[in-house]
């Protein structure tokens, strides 16, 4: 099948579209003859041209949502447009916090299924999903009528510019949703972080429970700094409260595809590997020779992180 009109859910916190948004627009451009972006916020006019550069010819804006969570109002607005006759053939959603809420709400509202965790999508509409930590690929497709809802995993597609003039911005009216939309954001907290962003850094140094205790995460941060990379973490130490959630790599955290990923004291659970096995090169340090992480490492060091990391850090310092 070919897709005529494809919509992309465009997230733009702080008035700047995410790289994830650009990945989806790029894919949509290859799939469909027209691409429209669905977005919200007070400053849509400020970034509409960015969406155009990646192929959107029209931007549908649900406007300023104030303190509401986007899930309910954006889904309701999309549903109303679709029921009103503006039917896209496919909608690409980012598998992100709000992307999932919006896709799930829309799916139930329109009684349409949603395919989740996509890592690829072919021209005939067949989607690919990685399971078991990426060791197995499932292919699936919709059997009913469009629109088809696809939730895509980050970094599944490259982000390439290609598009044209500034798109027209049109209103996507939000209907009254009554008590459904009763959740309000009282306060937003931003956790400070320096250095390159985890999902964009060319080098990621990640630490796990093998570090022993929270204070040893300094070794990870120092090594990351020396390599101009970003520190990351397994969920075990995020849950333990050693580092904020923003550091987490894996199924429920970030997907990273750096040039080099250095896993320190991480066992290599499938849920961790699914977030980092796309790295070009993987180095693992673990004291257990049987640790699963070694099965995907280009260089595996069987050793104690408390010995290997300080020496590595010293050696790097003496080079610069």
């Amino acid at each position, binding site marked *: 099948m070919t897709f005529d009109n494809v919509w992309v859910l465009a997230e733009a*916190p702080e008035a700047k579209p995410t790289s994830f948004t650009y990945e989806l627009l790029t894919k949509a451009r290859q799939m469909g003859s027209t691409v429209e972006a669905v977005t919200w916020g007070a400053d849509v006019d400020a970034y509409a041209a960015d969406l155009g550069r990646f192929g959107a010819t029209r931007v549908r804006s649900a406007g300023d949502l104030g303190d509401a*969570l986007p899930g309910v109002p954006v889904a309701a607005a999309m549903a109303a447009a679709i029921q009103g006759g503006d039917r896209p053939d496919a909608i690409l959603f980012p*598998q992100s*916090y709000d992307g*999932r*809420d919006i896709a*799930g*709400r829309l799916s*139930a509202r329109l009684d*349409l*299924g*949603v395919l*989740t965790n996509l890592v690829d999508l072919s021209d005939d509409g067949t989607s690919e999903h990685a399971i078991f930590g990426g*060791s*197995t*690929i*499932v*292919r*699936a497709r919709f*059997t*009913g009528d469009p629109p088809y809802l696809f*939730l895509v995993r980050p970094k599944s597609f490259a982000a390439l510019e290609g598009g044209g003039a500034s798109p027209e911005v049109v209103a996507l009216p939000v209907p009254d949703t009554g*008590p*459904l*939309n*009763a*959740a309000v*954001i*009282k*306060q*937003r907290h931003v*956790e400070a972080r320096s250095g390159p962003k985890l999902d964009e850094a060319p080098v990621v140094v990640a630490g796990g429970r093998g570090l022993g205790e929270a204070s040893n995460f300094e070794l990870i941060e120092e090594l990351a700094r020396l390599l101009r*990379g970003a520190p990351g973490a397994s*969920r075990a130490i*995020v*849950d333990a409260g050693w580092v*904020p*959630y*923003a550091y987490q790599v894996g*199924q*429920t955290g970030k997907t990273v595809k750096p040039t*080099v990923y250095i896993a320190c004291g991480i066992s290599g659970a499938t849920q961790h590997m699914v977030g980092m*096995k796309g790295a070009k*090169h993987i*180095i693992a340090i673990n004291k257990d020779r049987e640790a699963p992480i070694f*099965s995907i*490492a*280009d*260089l*595996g*060091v*069987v*050793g*104690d992180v408390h010995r*290997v990391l300080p*020496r*590595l850090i010293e*050696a*790097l310092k003496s*080079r610069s």
Partner: protein
Amino acid sequence: MNVVVCVKQIPDPANPGRLDPEAKTLVRQGKLILDDSDAYGVEMALQLVDAAGGGEVTLVSMAPHNEVSGLRTALAMGASKALLVSDDQLQGADALTTAKVLAAAIRRTDPDLVLAATESTDGYTGTTPVQVAELLGLPSVTFAKRIECDGSTVRVERQTEAGFDEVECPLPAVVTVTAGVVEPRYPSFKGIMAAKSKSVEQLTVADLGLDGSLRVGQEVTDVAAAQERQAGEIVQDEGNAHDRIIQLLDRLKVI
């Protein structure tokens, strides 16, 4: 305060099954267990009911073959009772179908709060709970890393890309919890014994009045092994393994 927790019973992730290349399906055997992700919801529910000074935790699950092993674990933790939907026609159910079933089961109870996990370990669509909320006409807050309730409002710290948001929502509502929201208790011996006599109400699609309204609009066309990454060189650290790492980083031009 009455809390419903959606709990999924899944094949043991340590023994995830194998691929049948002929039938293009996953072959899974053995008992189902309580999804770890849902243990957090059960614990959270127990603590909220405790803090409210009374009420009940009711489990809702959809699983094949009247499977109860996972439910027994959650009952042993302290939940009061369970509703289990089991029906052959639910084989291959997608997230929306699952949500319709769960929503219909939840309607039979009268919860102040519905908890689910942010995502299940085996399916991880992460959409089921919000679909349930939409079908029940309830507001929802996903990705909770902290929850507090007073009689009429739930206050949630919701993870975000940048950090977290403090979100307030009137009850009843659906909230999804992340791991780390609480530390799940281990069932005590007493709990395990008590769980054996707790009620698990078994329901079919017909019991829920959903006959004829469920259709799955998607199909699996193929299941195949992914191209595997090969293991590279493994070296034992004899005091100089860091040199090997530096050589590689040098070669890759990252230093």
